[in-house]
């Protein structure tokens, strides 16, 4: 009873607001002369090509982004491909409850966080250091050629790099273990040892990506006003002091920006890489959310459960990405558009 009264009140409010809006619109129209009206319709007709241009993009986005989003309902169903979305039984939050009751889930979330956070830190620090080291070198030719070489792995796929790493990290014949052997270290099974696997992922990921980051920070370094260095030299600052007081503050905003934009990757431990290097021996420390979703969903066809796990990840990621853009706007004045 009470509910309906409230509804009525709300209804009336909407009615009055609508009435006011219509009244205003009518008045505006009455004031606007015929010419203005014509101009407005003309404007709409002029803008028509702009709207038409959007159509292919909209169709594609609806088909391949929005329709799958509606498919998320199956996280709340016991989805059966024969019955489809409309006839599959609803199970409420059962999939989520089951997901958290599985002993593996917590371990997998932990693995994901561990690998992803170490990668974020490494991918931030290593390029900054390399950019600073490269900046100290006077030779432009050396700078440019080194930049070219370290940026190359960024463009190779993890399929190719996985083969390379499986080969050079092999405990019996791999180059890395041979070098370690000369130093008197026992062979390490980087890809088959639970203790070493996550660190290997972090290290190889940094190896692939640090050239990219270095170029970002070098671009920021060249943007520093040279008169600041001259002033520092006149004030008697040595090289270290210049780096500390001029160079680092000069790239601070870029570092902060890159850091905030990385926030959305806290649950992205790198599917392409780990999928191609993972083996059942190291599932305990190396299995991440994305590889779990893949195995559940496409190999074991537990569609609903896999979607629930995926949804859990994408909701958290969405919040983090939104937060990171907000922070980037607030602290670095950065807007993506």
């Amino acid at each position, binding site marked *: 009873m009470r509910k309906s009264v409230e509804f009525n009140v709300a209804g009336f409010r909407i009615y009055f607001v609508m009435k006011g809006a219509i009244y205003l619109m009518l008045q505006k129209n009455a004031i606007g002369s015929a010419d203005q009206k014509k101009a407005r319709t003309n404007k709409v007709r002029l*803008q028509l*090509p702009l*709207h038409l*241009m*959007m159509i292919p*993009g*909209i169709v*594609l*986005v609806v088909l*391949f*982004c929005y329709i*799958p*989003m509606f*498919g998320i309902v199956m996280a709340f169903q016991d989805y059966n491909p024969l019955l489809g979305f409309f006839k599959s039984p609803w199970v409420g939050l059962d999939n989520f409850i089951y997901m958290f009751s599985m002993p593996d889930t917590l371990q997998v979330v932990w693995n994901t966080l561990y690998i992803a956070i170490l990668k974020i830190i490494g991918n931030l620090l290593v390029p900054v250091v390399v950019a600073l*080291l490269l900046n*100290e*070198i006077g030779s432009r030719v*050396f700078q440019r050629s*080194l930049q070219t070489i*370290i*940026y*190359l*792995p960024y*463009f*190779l*796929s993890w*399929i*190719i790099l*996985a*083969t*390379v*790493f*499986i*080969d*050079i990290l092999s405990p019996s014949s791999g*180059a890395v273990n*041979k070098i370690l052997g000369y130093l008197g270290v026992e062979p390490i099974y980087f890809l088959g040892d639970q203790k070493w696997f996550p660190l290997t992922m972090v290290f190889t990921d940094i*190896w692939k990506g640090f050239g*990219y980051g270095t170029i*970002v920070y070098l*671009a*920021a370094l060249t943007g520093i006003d040279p008169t600041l260095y001259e002033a520092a030299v*006149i004030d008697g600052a040595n*090289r270290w002091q210049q780096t500390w007081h001029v160079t680092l503050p000069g790239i601070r905003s870029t570092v902060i920006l*890159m850091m905030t934009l990385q926030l959305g990757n806290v649950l992205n431990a790198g*599917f*392409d890489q780990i999928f*191609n290097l993972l083996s059942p021996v190291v599932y305990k420390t190396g299995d991440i959310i994305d590889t779990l979703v*893949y195995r559940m*969903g*496409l190999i074991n066809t537990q*569609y609903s459960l*896999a*979607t629930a796990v*995926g949804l859990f990840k*994408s909701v958290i990621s969405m919040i983090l*990405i939104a937060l990171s853009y907000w922070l980037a706007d607030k602290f670095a004045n*950065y807007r*993506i*558009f």
Partner: protein
Amino acid sequence: MLYKTSVSRKIFLVFDYLILILMGLSCFLPLLHVLALSFSSSSAATAGKVGLLPVGLNLSSYRYVAAKPEFWRAAGISLLRVLIGVPLQMLVTVMIAYPLSKDKNEFKGRSIYLWFFVVTMFFSGGLVPTYLTINALGLIDNFFALILPGMVSMFNVIILLNFFRGLPRELEEAAQIDGAGYWTCLWKIFVPLSKPAMATLVLFSAVGHWNAWFDGLIYMNKTSNYPLQSYLQTVVVAKDLSMITSAEMMSLKDISDQTNRAAQVFLAMLPIICVYPFLQKYFTKGIVLGSVKG
């Protein structure tokens, strides 16, 4: 320079060069190793004798790849997807970016459109719903499953949109006074003027298509429809035995698996390595365009 090069500075520079050269080598030598492996004899490869130079130089692994129709078929599909996928993606990107680069009063509903697209950057349906959608659209085992789903890349749209906004408005106004419509302005003014940005996007999109493997793996049931990287994933990384026929099993006995893998992997990265030094300018520009927007 006002400061003199002191001894400590010299020592620092020596270490600086040393560290950087070691880093450069770490990026380059593994690739050289693959090349050496592909030219080595199988016995030397299995014994782990191959370093940076081929041991027992021979071409048997390349002969093996040359006689492997599956490899070339997959490479052809990859090439086709670059040749068809990249122009289509650029077309759609331009057509979304241009209207969105207009002001709100010049393009009514701009912010609604913008949010409609931006949502896709924050949220996605996830693996299983996307797979089921592709399945329901009948795109399984269809070449266009490799092209259509990734065609709208909002990051590329935003890069181009920002570039369009940086172009002087007067050019378009002058053209409009001469009676040019939006289509004419887009193709005659905006696209030609944004060639540098477009070149970078084309390059990144081409590399992306060449390197993509997961879509081929899940959307193609028949291995004969795999693009090169998906083929390599199953044959080289996962070593899927279902693709190796029994006749090949025989030949595998005498030719080392390792050198053949190296040859295939090297051939797959060859196009990127060949293009890379010449277009380095655009590769570098891509970063600056993408992350430190002007």
